């Protein structure tokens, strides 16, 4: 897109700047819409599993429910507790929201549809997701209230614990793909099994890692059954207890943007991202153009994983905190470490490494 603007007579700097701003808006605005719709979908799925009807009043089938909620929240007053640390209290939700959007810069939506096609894409995702904990910790501390503070402590410990095993799982994927670039990882999955099935998940060595990654991503986004940071029976609403109106909504939006991001990562790292499930030429461009078809496949995979997330939330009871820590440190960490050794050993033995390093 930069080249187009340059051809209109802009200097490279300005062309790049405008193209990047447009790219950010093209990703961020549909993402916000997707968050609104996915909150609705979450409530509908959850309701269906509990044999209820869910939101069904605002708009056709209740489709506009999230927008009505957003409007309500927007019109409310922002209450700042008198004992709160005002500056940090206000910055915390903004950080949560911003960080949730930042990671989308490196997600490949199609063969050429990436905002920042950097060669440390996966490391960037890890770096940004490790920032996510600050919004929660800062809000919990700045609220100057007991339950939010407990929640912040829990969140910090939980996210750090699961980041360790997520790191090891990602290392296995990177070892197999031979690159940190997100698009490179997607392309490495093309025809991975017998030259016909796309996706690392069908690889017997990587399948257990995907299971661990799915569970870790539930823990990383603090979704049920690992939503101990906002366990309503213990901590009122956790770190959000003292928040109201838009500052509360920013937490909500950031949380769901993170959930969609984790679904996308599941799709990109293990299910072939924008590749169709089978490596057959007709599946690459049966919808208008190749780009739209690629986005369609990614969208289907994200929707599937979001359904799994909702499904888990509707059916699985919450973990106790010591069980959560046990799972992270005593089960996932040794297992993922073992798989790093196993997979690198297998790749060395078979000479699978594709001439990446000099």
């Amino acid at each position, binding site marked *: 897109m930069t080249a187009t603007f340059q051809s209109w007579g802009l200097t490279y*700097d300005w062309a*790049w*700047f405008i193209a990047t701003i447009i790219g950010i808006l093209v990703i961020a605005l549909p993402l916000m819409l997707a968050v609104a719709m996915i909150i609705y979908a979450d409530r509908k799925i959850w309701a269906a599993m509990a044999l209820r009807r869910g939101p069904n009043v605002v708009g056709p089938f209740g489709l506009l429910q999230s927008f009505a909620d957003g409007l309500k929240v927007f019109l409310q007053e922002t209450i700042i507790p008198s004992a709160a*640390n005002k500056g*940090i209290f206000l910055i915390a939700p903004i950080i949560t929201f911003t960080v949730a959007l930042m990671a989308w810069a490196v997600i490949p939506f199609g063969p050429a549809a990436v905002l920042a096609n*950097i*060669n*440390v894409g996966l*490391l*960037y995702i*890890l*770096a*940004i997701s*490790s*920032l996510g*904990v*600050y919004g929660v*910790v*800062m809000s919990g*501390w700045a609220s100057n209230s007991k339950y939010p*503070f407990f929640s*912040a*402590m829990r969140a*910090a*410990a939980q996210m*750090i614990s699961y*980041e360790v095993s997520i790191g090891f799982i990602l290392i296995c994927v990177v070892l197999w793909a031979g690159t*940190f670039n997100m698009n490179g990882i997607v392309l490495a999955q093309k025809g991975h099994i017998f030259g016909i099935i796309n996706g690392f998940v069908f690889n017997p060595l990587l399948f257990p890692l995907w299971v661990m990654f799915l569970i870790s991503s539930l823990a990383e986004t603090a979704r049920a059954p690992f939503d101990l940071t906002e366990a309503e029976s213990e901590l009122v609403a956790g770190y959000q207890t003292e928040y109201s109106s838009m500052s509360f909504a920013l937490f909500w939006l950031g949380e769901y943007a993170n959930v969609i991001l984790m679904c996308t990562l599941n799709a990109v790292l293990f299910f072939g991202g924008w590749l169709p499930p089978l490596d057959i030429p007709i599946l690459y461009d049966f919808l208008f153009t190749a780009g739209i078809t690629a986005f369609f496949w990614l969208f289907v995979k994200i929707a599937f994983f979001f359904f799994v997330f909702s499904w888990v939330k509707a059916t699985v009871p919450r973990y106790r905190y010591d*069980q959560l820590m*046990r799972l992270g440190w005593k089960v996932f960490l040794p297992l993922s470490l073992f798989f790093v050794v196993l997979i690198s050993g297998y790749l060395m033995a078979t000479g699978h490494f594709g001439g*990446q*390093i*000099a």
Partner: protein
Amino acid sequence: MIQTIAFYLFAVIVVASAVMVISARNPVHSVLWLILAFFNAAGLMVLVGAEFIAMLLVIVYVGAVAVLFLFVVMMLDIDFAELRSGFVKNFPFGMLIALVLAVELIFGIGAWQIGGIQLGLAQGAGHMADAHSNIASLGAVLYGQYLFLFEAAGLILLVAMVGAIVLTHRERRAVRGQQNISKQVARRPDEATVMKSPESGKGIEL
């Protein structure tokens, strides 16, 4: 031009937040300023083309070390007056360290000025071959040229970690709530429950 603007933005924020780290009254604010400084330093690293180091800086320092810092500082009950009283006492020592750092910086820049070392130049001696990414180049150096030193450093860290765990580990016995998960999972319904079907009108003996 964009790079220049970005450089001045990052550099000003790094310096300003570094000043705030030592001048903030509240220790938690200090840690948060420190995190901002780390993050913007990572931005500077990206600008000089060291994207791998930048990402590591964010992952390791911002994502792990600073969270633990924050964790500890948030739980401390700090007497601010006492904290301030040490300022005058430690001032000369602090100035000495600042002086040493300044002298090192001057020597470093001086050596670069007269051409003793080449840094940050595309043609400089420190520049790696163009064909490889940062990660591939670093990997080739760490796991090729300096393999032994790298492994030795890893071993020392492992020993340190084991040492820390051994020193702080306490054997806890007979504490309420201790459970053996594998034992619980291995338990079958027929060992835990008994099926009785008593005749009507008669009691049940357990």
